[in-house]
């Protein structure tokens, strides 16, 4: 049996602002993880990644991040993605401040 595919979101940093962005189902870059498209099929994930990487004037360092699908949208399975989705722990800056 091949290993089960861990659902993914496409994520990057915005070229101009530098902040964390996610790819939504309608191809927009969104700032909030709960608006991101969760991809459960490996082949589709690869195509979405390639398409996103082609948008070099909008996004830097595009990659696929592991997520768990929940009713509230994708939830990070690793603490690094949790910090990216939230912001630093020493100040109320970054995503958490955007509300």
């Amino acid at each position, binding site marked *: 049996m091949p290993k089960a595919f861990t659902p993914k979101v496409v994520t990057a940093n915005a070229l101009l602002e530098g902040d964390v962005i996610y790819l939504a189902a309608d191809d927009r870059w969104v700032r909030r993880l709960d608006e991101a498209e969760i991809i459960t099929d490996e082949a589709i994930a690869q195509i979405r990644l390639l398409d996103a990487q082609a948008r070099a*004037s909008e996004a830097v360092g595009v990659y696929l991040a592991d997520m768990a699908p929940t009713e509230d949208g994708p939830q990070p399975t690793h603490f690094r993605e949790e910090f990216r989705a939230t912001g*630093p*722990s020493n100040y109320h800056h970054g995503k958490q401040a955007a509300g």
Partner: protein
Amino acid sequence: MYRYTEFDTAFVAERNRQFRQQVERRISGALTEDEFKPLRLMNGLYLQLHAYMLRVAIPYGTLNSAQMDQLALLAEKWDKGYGHFTTRQNIQYNWPELRDVPDMLDALAEVGMHAIQTSGNTIRNVTADHFAGAAADEVADPRPVAELLRQWSTDHPEFQFLPRKFKIAVTGAENDRAVIKAHDIGIQVVERDGEIGYRVLVGGGLGRTPMIGKELSPFVPQQDLLPYVEAVVSVWNLLGRRDNKYKARIKITVHEHGIDEIRSLVETRFEETKQAFDGADLAIFDEIKAQFAPPAFRNAPTDAYDAAYAEDPVFRAWADSNLTAHKAGGYAIAQISLKAHGETPGDATAEQMRVMADLARRFGHDELRITHEQNVVLPHVHKSDLPQIHKILKAHGLATANIGLISDIIACPGMDYCALATARSIPIAQEIATRFDELKIENEIGELKIKISGCINACGHHHVGHIGILGLDRAGVENYQITLGGDATETASLGERTGPGFPAEEVVPAIERIVGAYMEHREGPEESFLQAYRRLGMAPFKLALYGEDSGKRSRAA
């Protein structure tokens, strides 16, 4: 202090003009990220976890008040109102936007500052003893030679594509406050028969393969220094491992070839490099040195200091921990702690930066220093002004009396900001400082240096902390390894791992147990943690950390 020449000003302006156009070309799509990245890194601009990060060079950690004011302006205008002082005596801004960076660089240029060579595989910002020019124990001020090295290395055509980054540190005293043994090249100003020269160490470094630097030459005369250093970098440039970035630093080259072979190669190369130096560097050195002439110290009574010291216990505590002997009578070196308990080590708000700038202007001969321990120094203050300085610092949250104590923690930005980090550093530092402040035993513990890195690259110098903490990712959970017995000074040593690591919530209790064991076993308050560790070895600390089965657990680790 060094003032930019017309050449420096024109050079920085030209680089800023080029970078502005590079940013525009990146935004227009004319440059890809792969093309742009090396260009932005050459100008100190990283892309981190949540945002861009601009790293600004503070050569040998020396600033004047106008420069500090400008750093405050940058923090306020283009960042979130604060800046982070680093273990490389630099400042980092965590939230700039790409379009603003050229303006930030232009603003820096107005006060003779830049971000050139704060990243990339070049010779980085040259660091130095933060007490330079003020310390009672110094042979000579290390900054003129640090500035000479800065000028020589900036845009050096041979050294723009080195195998890896290259860091040089200079100390002017036998007491090493610049961690020269953990640098690619460490330089110590020495005197022999009345002549000033330089002891040159090579191959030190921290990171994934920590090494203590080895002596390459006990004495390099002034006229040979630049060609000699050029020979060292040149030998490594050809010999260094470009096949594997983890083996590319000169410490690995020295380790693989042996110090004797490196010395012989350097000497051969030196015969060539010195032909290209015609003495112009000596003339430049003399001009630089003149600009670092000591300020006009005043001769005044210290009654105000003595009275405050006798009467005010808060001032006394601050004076006892934050002041160091100055070479001039009636003067002191005052350290401003950026380690208020529970705050982020090394951070200062724009307002605090302006306060420090103002203090330097009014009381400190217009000089400030940034230490690799992430604090700020007023290097030349007359003791009679200290009560007033302390009062102002207190009003702005800058009078924490903890220099050298357990809460004066070095911490890298860790995974709160850094894209390379494997775990967070800042919250661990905040928790340790808060806990020991609650216990009110900091002074009783005495000198104890905790250094925390959020990944193996060791920006937080954990290997040379009396207690070192290294944050790692263990199967998707933050986990912290502890080392003991590291030392960053002239008696440098690398810490030894205690055993298995600890999850984040167990780090503070673990530190408490280590400190408890030290307090129990020390011969008296005069025996520091490091001395006690060197006498006792690991055993009592291991027992305190892991209990009776510590032997078994560490074998399993």
